[in-house]
């Protein structure tokens, strides 16, 4: 028993160390900005940061599933767009809002299924498959919305509108609803990934697909499920964005996938598969979000912000690589 305890400690310690890596970056940013700007550590600003990060973080959680399985996901942004369009169109059809939400997430999952099909059955490499669907889903968005933005105010019934407004910009205990949604999703996905057999299978497939297959895991199925998770989360992100903006833009979500991938990777999810955590991905999204917010507060112009974003992606991933190397050489 004693023995098993130390074992647990070891696992916890390693995971904690990984977690610390991203945390260090996060706190570094927070400290710097709180020194530089008095407006940074105010309640209002903190809430506005969490709010601006919520959607990206939700998306990044889903994308992490695909990255952990060793895939790529370039279509997530387009799924966000298509989800928004589907959401508004189904609202317009007079369907109650909560059913619309389910339909929309369902469509996101279908998009993921399609990606999974291309990757596992048509044997396309994930980059190309999802690049193709990026175009397809974006095109679908335009077609569904007839190319114009759809106002939720116009398509939703009175009662639904109030509910959707509450989701998009309401608060409970001073914390925005979208943040709750993001946290709940992150918790659920964390549990799926770390506590369920599905999670183990996902890691196994991402770590060594051949070994996983030989051990009786239907890797094709697991891969497809990972894409479906990503699609579903992108669908949810689409709903969140739509309720926040109270309109569905045909261009909504453009290049969100890159932000999501960047967040995941900054948070320690490996693009080679087999490694990563959901809290890490959320933290990655926060690092990017806090940096943007801080630089805005400091009045750094948007041009330099782009440069700094790029630098942070590179430095974060590089630091991660260095840390892993050190660990590997230590053993």
């Amino acid at each position, binding site marked *: 028993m004693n*023995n*098993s305890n*130390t*074992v*647990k400690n*070891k*696992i916890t310690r*390693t995971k904690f160390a990984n977690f610390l890596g991203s945390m260090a970056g996060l706190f570094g940013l927070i400290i710097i900005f709180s020194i530089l700007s008095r407006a940074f550590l105010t309640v209002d600003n903190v809430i506005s940061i969490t709010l601006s990060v919520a959607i990206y973080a939700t998306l990044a959680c889903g994308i992490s599933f695909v990255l952990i399985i060793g895939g790529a996901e370039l279509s997530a942004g387009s799924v966000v767009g298509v989800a928004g369009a589907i959401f508004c169109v189904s609202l317009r059809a007079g369907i109650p809002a909560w059913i619309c939400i389910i339909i929309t997430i369902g469509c996101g999952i279908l998009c993921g299924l399609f990606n999974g099909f291309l990757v596992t059955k048509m044997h396309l490499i994930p980059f190309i498959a999802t690049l193709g669907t990026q175009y397809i889903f974006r095109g679908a968005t335009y077609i569904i919305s007839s190319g114009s933005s759809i106002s939720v105010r116009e398509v939703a019934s009175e009662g639904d509108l109030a509910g959707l407004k509450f989701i998009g910009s309401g608060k409970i205990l001073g914390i925005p609803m979208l943040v709750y949604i993001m946290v709940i999703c992150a918790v659920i996905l964390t549990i799926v990934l770390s*506590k*369920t*057999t*599905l*999670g*183990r*299978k996902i*890691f*196994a497939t*991402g*770590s*060594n697909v*051949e*070994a*996983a297959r*030989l*051990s*009786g*895991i239907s890797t094709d199925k697991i891969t497809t499920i990972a894409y479906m998770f990503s699609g579903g989360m992108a669908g949810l992100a689409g709903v969140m964005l739509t309720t926040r903006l109270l309109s569905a833009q045909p261009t909504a979500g453009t290049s969100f996938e890159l932000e999501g991938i960047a967040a995941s990777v900054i948070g320690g999810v490996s693009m080679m598969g*087999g*490694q990563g955590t959901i809290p890490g991905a959320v933290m990655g999204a926060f690092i990017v979000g806090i940096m943007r917010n801080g630089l805005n507060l400091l009045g750094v112009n948007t041009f330099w912000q782009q440069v700094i974003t790029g630098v942070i992606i590179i430095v974060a991933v590089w630091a991660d690589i260095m840390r892993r190397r050190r*660990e*590997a050489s230590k*053993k």
Partner: protein
Amino acid sequence: MGEILRMEGISKSFPGVKALDNVNIVVNSGEVHALLGENGAGKSTLMKILNGVYAPDEGKIIVKGKEVSIHNIKEAQELGISIIFQEFNLCPDLTVADNVYIGRHKNKFGFVDAKYVEKETQKILDRFKLNMIKPGDVVMTMSVAQMQMVEICKAMSFDSDVVVFDEPTAALADSEIEQLFMVIKQLQKEGKGIIYISHRMEELSKIADRVTVLRDGQQVGDPFDFASVTLDELINRMVGRTMEDKYPKHERKIGEVFFEANHIRNKKVNVDHIDVRKGEILGIAGLMGAGRTEMARAIFGADPVSSIEVKVNGKKVNVGSPGQAIKNGIAYLTEDRKNEGLALRLDCEKNINMASMKKISKYGFVINKTAEENAKHYVDALSVKTPKLGQLAQFLSGGNQQKLVLAKWLSRQVDLLIFDEPTRGIDVGAKFEIYKLMNELSDQGVGIIMISSELPELLGMSDRVALMHEGSIVGEVIAKETTQEEIMEYITGLKTKGTEREGNE
């Protein structure tokens, strides 16, 4: 001791090869059944059939009296048959417990019962007294031997009745082998049947009960008790001819020392001195993991070293990278030809010319005619079996792939060739051709370092044999004047000599 497994009349052909021809094998519970034979005799193929990786062309498998057909590893496991491959099937990012229970976690409503899995894994580890492994260790951070133990635990978690070990000691150090044997003895005590494949005759005497010998896909006689034969008789049955036949007779004209490497130091290697004469074949003997490959890679500049000094013809040269080593006339044939030797998706011509860009180009432009003629010359010289020069390397058989790698270096015309396991996975005929080639090269005054795990091959081909143990050269013997036993004593660390001699020079 009842029979638990019987394979009857198994035959299997691959395009161009009859890998197995009417083979029978019977395994009883509580015995270690050794499966012996030369490279390419068909041992692995037989075991892959047993585990459902390949389907047999003919024959049947009977497990505990019932005829079964096995289509994949999972079915085999469910029937109580497990195999431990030499190339591992573990997920490096997962923990030991997760790997042991991969794909079949005990679950409550889809949730992993981590405690249960860890406890069970711990039980298995305890059973074999593997207390240096913890269920929560991540496989990526483990040594090769530990990974193998994980594979064994995985097999045991199925409570298998038959456990197959395909060359398990190939990657292990001595102390680790001891541990493996303890595990095997434990299995034996529990009444399991064990099939054990190995090329190391010496270790068999410690564990093998009965032996089945395969030669070129055919069974040689009935299984017999290991104790009833001498080692010589055993080898005779395996090879089917005497040693003289296996290695081309050759008189070498050996010149003066032209290559020297001193103070080779890195994590795995600590070698003070090594030298090669013109036209000489220097064998390197050592157990797996002795650091032979690491030393060779260090000399070739393929890996970083903390110190090294290389002299060619008495002049110090820089070997900071493979490119520089090659410029100084040193070449290295990797042991892992698929991953490190060949560009599988390129054709034969491009592979052969890969290291000889200067030879086939003018002002940086490739002259197609020269390139093709050059490639064709070596394809003919080595009789590489390929339908066309434009054939992609991935479509050649293993032996022909090895010849391609050889052709690459022959084309480059270097002074020192380091062969790392040049005949691994190569059939008898191809081996003989490679030996002949080595002889021809030495005739041309090329110095050769040959790393091999097959002692007979080392004794048959080399002039001198340097002996490595745990990263250092612990001795040196003249091939003609030594025996396998003496070499074994050195490389297992029982005996050291000559280190002082080298130090004095």
